């Protein structure tokens, strides 16, 4: 056993943290959130340049990382800074699916920041179930509806799951293809998604199955968990600072026992979350991988709610205002529960896998 980051990952973490601290300020982010596209092209280009996108791929795939801990390091930092750019969906999920399909040219473009992707899998009424796919593949066209598709508007291509008879396969659909309708909307925690309808829309089979999607979904679980960890680090740090700065009766409110003890509880939960993310990232190759992933996501759902709610509560009114950093971070934490299965979904899965 060994709990140290490799030198490369340590460097990646330092670089990314410094970059985001300097460039991705609250006001910059608020402008991005309010913009029509919901993302910044220049930030995107710089993330590519810093090697952040490449770190999400193996050397074989044209990157220089791609393991669980590479993903964890990147997303923890993105989470810490409350980054709204769709690295998770466009690069990690989209890119790794294309890599699995052997589309190395496109992967190269993704890593260079030159190609945007969207993964259109979930459908209305499907909640978090991975096999709820009613979109139909008929020869080389798709017909159906996809729900809350992240980054659909900005994507050059959509990777769409569809059913051909009993089999679920993945298909590539170009932006602007006939019969493709994208109705976009902003998200509560920043960024944009869309309802996507396909009506006999031309599509290219990627030769991938639901199992390939599931494999990438496990990476996404590590990513969203690490992102939530990063956001919780910021939430606790902001709260700690606030308690040490804000005074009542002439002393910092953090010296009042009730708040001090509740702050301690948040820090304890943060340690738990940190360990949970390590368990997820470090067990991607283990035989009981899914058990670890569900354990992690469940714990993060519970701890995340506690941290977000307590951070707001201990701040008081200021945290209720949109312009304050914590407001955004708290929304990122809570909304992470709505991706790739929520607290109860993973509790059930953990129970089922434990019994198996």
């Amino acid at each position, binding site marked *: 056993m060994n709990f140290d980051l490799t030198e490369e990952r340590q460097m990646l973490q330092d670089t990314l943290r410094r970059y985001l601290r300097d460039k991705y300020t609250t006001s910059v982010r608020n402008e991005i959130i309010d913009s029509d596209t919901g993302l910044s092209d220049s930030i995107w280009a710089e993330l590519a340049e810093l090697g952040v996108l490449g770190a999400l791929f193996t050397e074989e795939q044209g990157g220089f990382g791609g393991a669980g801990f590479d993903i964890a390091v990147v997303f923890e930092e993105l989470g810490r800074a409350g980054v709204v750019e769709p690295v998770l969906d466009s690069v990690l999920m989209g890119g790794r699916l294309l890599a699995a399909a052997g589309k190395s040219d496109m992967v190269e473009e993704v890593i260079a920041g030159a190609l945007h992707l969207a993964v259109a899998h979930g459908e209305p009424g499907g909640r978090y179930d991975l096999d709820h796919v009613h979109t139909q593949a008929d020869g080389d066209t798709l017909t159906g509806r996809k729900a809350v598709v992240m980054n659909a508007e900005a994507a050059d291509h959509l990777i769409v799951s569809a059913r051909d008879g009993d089999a679920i396969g993945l298909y590539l659909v170009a932006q602007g293809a006939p019969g493709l309708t994208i109705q976009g909307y902003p998200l*509560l925690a920043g960024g944009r998604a869309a309802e996507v309808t396909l009506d006999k829309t031309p599509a290219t089979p990627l030769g991938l199955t639901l199992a390939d999607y599931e494999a990438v979904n496990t990476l996404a679980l590590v990513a969203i968990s690490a992102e939530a960890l990063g956001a919780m680090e910021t939430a606790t740090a902001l709260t700690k600072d606030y308690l040490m700065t804000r005074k009542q009766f002439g002393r910092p409110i953090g010296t009042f026992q009730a708040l001090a003890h509740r702050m301690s509880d948040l820090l304890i939960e943060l340690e738990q979350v940190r360990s949970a993310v390590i368990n997820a990232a470090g067990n991607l190759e283990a035989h009981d991988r899914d058990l670890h992933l569900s354990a992690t996501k469940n714990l993060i759902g519970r701890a995340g709610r506690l941290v977000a709610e307590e951070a707001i*509560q201990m701040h008081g009114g200021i945290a209720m205002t*949109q312009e304050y950093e914590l407001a955004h971070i708290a929304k990122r934490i809570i909304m992470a529960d709505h991706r790739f299965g929520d607290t109860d979904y993973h509790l059930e899965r953990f129970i089922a896998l434990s019994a198996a």
Partner: protein
Amino acid sequence: MDLSYTPEELAFQDELRAFLRDELPGDIADKVRSGRELDKADMERWHAILNARGWLAQNWPRAFGGAEWSAVQRHIYDVEAAAAHAPRIVPFGLSMLGPVLQKFGSKEQQDHWLPRILDGSDWWCQGYSEPGAGSDLASLKTKAVRDGDHYVVNGQKTWTTLGQHANMIFCLVRTDPDVKQQEGISFLLIDMDSPGVEVRPIILLDGSPEVNEVWFTDVKVPVENLVGEENKGWTYAKYLLTHERTGLGGVGSSQAGLAAVKRLARAENHNGKPLIQNPHFAARVAQVEIDMRAMATSNLRIVSQAAAGGAPGLEASMLKVKGSIIRQEINDLARRAVGPYAMPFASEAVEGANDMIPDRLEAGPVAAQYFNNRKLSIFGGSNEIQRGIIAKVTMGGGA
């Protein structure tokens, strides 16, 4: 003890249900049900309908044009109105200022202001909180200096709910800076159209423009707008707070919210079954419902005790804490219920997009409400303040 309604109470319930069925405008109820924002005209319309029936000022004495309902009647209204998706009655004039004027206002003030609250001539807001003062009203800094037949007011109020709609504000202001903190405070009625009053919106974390900052720069206020005696404002404020707290359990709103959660969870499917049948989700729903049932009984006990002349300070604080926790838990269940559709940012601005998302429209902006209702445990005396009060009353000292 008897937990059942009397025949009179049951008759009242029937009457109320008929009234809500016949008189509550469908477009307003739809907005409330789907969690969309009510505009000023919606709220004024509903107030006018209630007022026409004599049911707007439910806790006011008949002498002032009120309905003078009993505690149980008010409870029944609370539950039935929420179940019918009626808007909440805007409390500032009716529940807050009204009782203060009735108890401490001059005859002239009562004659002038009370009818204007009922007929909607004035929209009141509350000027209590100040930046940096948190829930600690005694440390407020907004100053009013007497100058002939008027006061000159300078300072800033914050967290002023619905201040953007108001033409009048009742304020706590410091009229004597030299005395102990809680003394030297006066209760002043200020016309928001006066020169020097500026309202700036504060956008809350869910994007809603619900609260405001109100700035006063050399604002002239006629002395006849002083309520009661100069420097006695703290007494009136305390009276108001006690009054305000009655019914803070939010039983009606919790019941309606829980019913909405159940509707959502019946419509959602998980593993081929309605979500409401999922044991984990059902357990969450059941536990909060069980807590709510007990809280509703506490609410009734406390309200009847208050009606019998008991001072409900301690119990009101308990109710506020438990009531806010229950409502927030219900909000949390609602966001869980809708799954990935909790993520879209639903507001008037993206109504067009919402039309694309039928499931989402049914859901309403549940995640936004979840964040917005974090305020329940922060505004109006945070739960920490309430716990401090409970400790102080029961143990003395403790804070």
